[in-house]
């Protein structure tokens, strides 16, 4: 039976991953195939159905700040494998290579239509933008910088939650970042939290939901527990549109759902009210 003796076809996963980025992208919303250039021009929003593709930190910063005003802070801070967690070191190196970033968040000073702000942008490509010691520390330092310079802080979140590989240290970043926000709050300074796809777990349960004002991108996922966990634990049927920005808006967590192309102006006009 020759069919059983045939050599196994070896599909190489590696090769696929190394392919240059395609010129055409398929929209997960409507299935439309869109040219990369057109997508870029449209801030990675589908022109057909308005589906918002995820942005990396670089693209996000460019899309909301005044050109040339972003000045990165805390570039040198690096993660360590404090628990000697199996495979963690390799993962860090791998994602540093893929993204060209040190960690899952970029922070800095910037201007948004003339308003000076401190800005933090999480990058979901880096280990799901999970929050470990470095992400927590960079957010805390950004909040402290805003407190010190009496400016506003804006954090654009996207995260799978706390980073398991750093165990309890990751959990404590929730307390640390929230504590820094307590001081910012006392100083009477604004924090605008922008939730993007997806914001979940320990990030949702700490700084991301503590914004004076919470904005969200249309259709993005916002939640505490993952939908699968909820289904398995409670055997409940999940309602339509569960844990989307629209769902959270309806349930009072999100102030405004803002389209990506309007985000920059919306931030500026809110800042106009909150900053003296």
């Amino acid at each position: 039976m020759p069919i059983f003796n045939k050599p196994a076809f070896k599909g190489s996963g590696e090769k696929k991953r190394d392919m240059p980025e395609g010129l055409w992208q398929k929209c997960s919303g409507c299935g439309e195939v869109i040219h990369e250039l057109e997508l870029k021009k449209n801030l990675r929003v589908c022109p057909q159905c308005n589906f918002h593709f995820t942005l990396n930190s670089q693209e996000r910063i460019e899309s909301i700040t005044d050109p040339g005003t972003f000045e990165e802070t805390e570039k040198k801070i690096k993660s360590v494998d404090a628990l000697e967690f199996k495979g963690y070191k390799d993962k860090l190196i791998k994602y540093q290579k893929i993204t060209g970033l040190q960690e899952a968040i970029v922070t800095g000073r910037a201007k948004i239509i003339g308003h000076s702000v401190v800005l933090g942008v999480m990058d979901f490509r880096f280990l799901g933008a999970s929050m470990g010691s470095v992400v927590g520390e960079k957010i805390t330092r950004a909040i402290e910088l805003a407190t010190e310079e009496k400016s506003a802080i804006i954090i654009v979140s996207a995260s799978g939650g706390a980073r398991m590989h750093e165990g309890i240290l990751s959990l404590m970043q929730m307390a640390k970042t929230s504590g820094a926000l307590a001081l910012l709050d006392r100083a009477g300074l604004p924090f605008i939290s922008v939730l993007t796809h997806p914001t979940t777990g320990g990030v949702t349960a700490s700084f991301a939901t503590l914004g004076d004002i919470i904005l969200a991108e249309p259709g993005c996922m916002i939640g505490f527990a993952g939908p699968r966990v909820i289904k398995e634990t409670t055997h409940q049927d999940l309602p339509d549109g569960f844990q989307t920005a629209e769902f959270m808006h309806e349930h009072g967590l999100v102030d405004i759902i803002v389209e990506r192309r309007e985000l920059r102006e919306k931030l500026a006009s809110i800042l106009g009210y909150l900053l003296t």
Partner: protein
Amino acid sequence: MGTKKTPKKKISPKKKYAISSWKRVEIARHPRRPMMLDYVASCFDDFIELHGDRHIGDDGAMPAGLIRVDGIKCVVIGHEKGRGTDEKLKRNFGSAGPEGYRKALRMMKIAEKFKLPVISIIDTPGAYPGVEAEERNIAESIAYNLREMMLLRTQIIAIVIGEGGSGGALGIGVADRVMMMENSYYSVISPEGCAAILWKDRKYAPDAANAMRLDAKNLKRLGIIDRIIREPSKGAHTNPSLASKNLKDSILDGIKELSSVPIDQLLEQRYKKYRAMGEFIG
């Protein structure tokens, strides 16, 4: 057929310490282990239970109220898992929802107003992952507690007596003194959850438990907790009265230490403690 299966990765087959760390998790979940209300009955006097978050309802998983410890007036909050089916259902197996965290904060504000120390007893597998909980913004209820507890103007002592499950534990766990019973655990995610995500199988939970170093000794070494409370050699359930005596003594020590510190200094120390948590270069 014809395709060769990739050999399954073997994950740390049996390490020397593999049993002990996981064993603590097992003891922490032992069905006869004393729970919050057992300790409330054995360590404290004159418990007046208070109910409700003033908005939605009363969460049975988070009992709270006024108590005396050796005559010292305090506010107690904590997770109760319940014993027996009816009680367990009433207590939702110790998984509190947003109403629980908001009730706990309400009690802490009472403590602040009347200058009473807060005793927070942690024993939860995690905050409740349910549709209603998400609808009422459970994440925000925990986040808000973290922020408010950081600057709460009274002494806070938190003790993990069994399971310290993630955000559900931390949501009442920001404190001047954090203590753990010897056979309790405190973790960013349940060992089962960690194993399922990283190794695609819950059966690796013991490995996950060891990898995350979630037992009291390791957490003390990492500077996350301040004190380990000794238990009878085979676990608190083998001699509950001894366990509760040790717990009571530790709480009294904590109150004594903290009450001599001026409140502004106490808040500064609390903030600095959490500010310093995390390990990195630069």
